Structure formats: C-alpha cells, structure tokens
C-alpha cells in the first residue's frame, strides 16, 4: 500500500533526521503528528509536545486534542502556527 511518509523518506534516504517524527498539517484544520514523546502544554490556544531532539509548539484558536495515543496526536481547530524548537 502507498504510504506518503515512506515515499518521502525514500527520497531523502541520506538524511538522518527524517526518522524522528512525522507531522502533517491539513488545511490548517487538522494537525497529525507521529512520533511524539509527551504533551507539555495543553490549552485552546497553545499545544506543545516533545519529539526526539526537541519540541513542537502549535498556536491557534479553539484547538483540542481529538486523539492521543502513545506515539500519535491529532489536533483539530484553527491552526495558525507550527514551530519546531
């Protein structure tokens, strides 16, 4: 089966960082993250979570965690800014 992330990783096979996490933003309404290591901050306007080698902050409005599992997060709401620190 075709996997978007796998195909991208094949293209960038020499880069080591591609194995750390995957993040996809769908029209600023849904943000899907694979490979998180824990939620740091949770509010309607700011959600922050740790990934391997850093942290990602998501800023927006009316945001909530639609799904949370050990390695994946699905954020829904008005996503305005995603920043990797």
């Amino acid at each position, binding site marked *: 089966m075709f996997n978007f992330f796998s195909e991208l990783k094949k293209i960038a096979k020499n880069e080591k960082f591609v194995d750390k996490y995957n993040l996809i933003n769908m029209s600023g309404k849904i943000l899907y993250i694979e490979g998180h290591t*824990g*939620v*740091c*901050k*949770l*509010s*309607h306007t700011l959600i922050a979570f740790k990934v391997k080698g850093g942290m990602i902050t998501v800023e927006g409005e009316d945001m*909530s*965690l*639609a*799904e*949370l*599992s*050990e390695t994946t997060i699905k954020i829904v709401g008005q996503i305005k800014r995603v920043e990797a620190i």
Partner: protein
Amino acid sequence: MIKSFHHFKIKGLNQERFFNNISKKYHIFDINRQDNTLCSFKVERRFAKKVKTEILNANFTIIEEKSSGAGYYFSRFIGAYGVLLAIVLCSVFYAFQLRFIERIEVWGDLNTEIEQFLEENLPTKNKNKLNCDEIEKMINDEFNDLSFVSVAVVGQTLVVNVKNSIIPSEMVDEYAPIVSSYDGIVREIELVQGTLSVEIGDIIQKGQILVEGYVKNSEGEILNIQPKAEIILDVWAEGESQHFSKLMITSRTGKSCSNTSVQLFGYEFYSNNVQPTFSQYEEEKVSEYLTKNNILPFKIVTTKYFETETKVVESELNLEKQIELARENCLQNIKNYEIIKEENYRVISEGNKTTVKYVVTASVKVVNV
C-alpha cells in the same frame, strides 16, 4: 457511533503529565481543556473502569462521567428489556412448537413395535394435518392380531390404545370344537363323541365348526365333552404359473450417490444438494433422529440413489415345465391330502404372457380321535 465511549470530566492539576501516562496504555479521544484545572475527554467504553482507577490514583476529581454509543444503548436495552424479550421469544417458540406432536405413547400390547412403526411411518408431526382415523387404519393394516385400535392427540402426545385379539377360552381348551382348515364338501363323517354341526354333502368354509365340544343329555342339559371324530372332506385348490416370452428385467449397475439433508418438523434446514445424474435410478430413503431430546427433533434424512438398467430378456416357452410348476403351486395349498381325485389345467395366452392355471380336487381327512 457504533463504538461506545465513556466520557470523563475531571478536575486537578498537572493534567499533561496524567495524559502522557495514560496515553501509553489507552487511546484517548476529544481532550478538551476548559481551564487550567478542568478538562474533559473520552475513552473506549471497555477501558472505562481501568481509566477511572487511573484518574483516582492520580488524585483527580471526577466531576462528571457518562457513556454513549450504539453498543452502550444496546447493552442498556438488554439490561432493561432482556428478560421481557426472552419471555416473548420463548412464548413465540412455545406457541410454535405446540402445533407439533412431541412424543408417541402406546398403551397395550405390542407397544414397542407400534411405537417404532409410527416413528417411521407417521405422515406428519403437525397436529392440524394429522388424521387419527388414517393412523388407526395404518396400524390395523400393519398388525393383524389387534382387535381394537384407538388413536387420539392429547396435548402434544399421540396416544395409541391397542388390544390384542381375544380368543374365547372354550375355543382353546380341551373342549374346543373341531374346526375345518379348508373350504370344501363333507363326504364322510365318523363321529366318536360330541355334537355334529355339519352333514354329509354340506359345503363348508375355512374356520367353520365341524363338531361341537358338548352333548345334550335326555333332560336337555349340556355336558361338555372332548369332541372326537374322523371327517373326510373334498377340497379343491388352485395354483398357477406364468411365462413371459419377452421380459424386461431392471437391475442395479453398482453406481450410486447419496443426498443428505437435515430437517425439523419436515422443513429442510441443510442439504448437500446431491442430485442423481443417472437417466434411470432407484432410491432408498433412511431417516433417523440426530438427537434424542424432545425439544428440537432434528432428523437426518439420507437418500441413496442407485443407477439401474433395464434389459429385455427373451425366453422360449416350455409348456410341460410350466404345467408342473403350476401343479406344485397348487399342491402347496393343500396339506395332508389323502387322495387326489381330479386335476385339470387351462393354458391362457395373452400377447407375450402365458398363464397355466391348475385345479386339484383332493380328499382330506380331519381326524381328532
């Protein structure tokens, strides 16, 4: 909507840490943080108890909790109306099975044989379609020794009441009359003791009394006595043999196939759908109960199909042999004959069929001295 969820609304500090911990074990949905201390989320209903324990262990206060989803509403429905539903279903099933005969009970003689006969030959178990008169006739035809048969449907039981033929005691004891075993004409009588019921020249039937086991004295009193007499009867018997110049003989070729089906009250539930591909065949049907319980009398019916072939066999007529065969058949009908008085035969030809009819008149001695 099909999945069932359990909603929690909790209050407490450091919720991020709590979510990080439980997300390692369970999938969490719709986390909605209302303020720094208040938060709501949902988990799959099957994990609700475990998650609740985790919440309480983490010193959070549960403000509100509720379940939703089709599975939840279904389990609630079963919890609330399950017993009622079971009663309704049982009542429907009970009403349905009331239409059928559950067991057969035979009162009287030959009960095992009659029960087995009915199990195999009962046309239907549906009480409405069952004809008691027909069953009585079936039993009467099958068992000759019965003098009385009564069939009735009582509840779900087919009650069969039978009585054996009763022979009067005076017909079997030492004063039993002398009875003719043949149809014929009385030719000679030598009475020793008893009362004669026939005269010379009388035409008698099989089973007719020849000498009664009593005498009347001069005062008209009846005294029982063992009848003794020597009576000679002229009896006649018929026998025949047939010959076909062209005969069609059907025999099995050895090829066969079988169809198996499972039935309940005559309705087919399963069949392996094997149909014979032979152009000409015979079938044998065997039916037996799958279980011995009376609640669901499932029957397994095996129908075996045997391929057959028909051949035309031609044979020459040997008239002498056919006459001899007819004579043998005729003499088998007269036992213990004294003299053969007269014998004759007729040959009848119809198309490819030849029939020899043989008639013998013989003297038979009925002795009881």
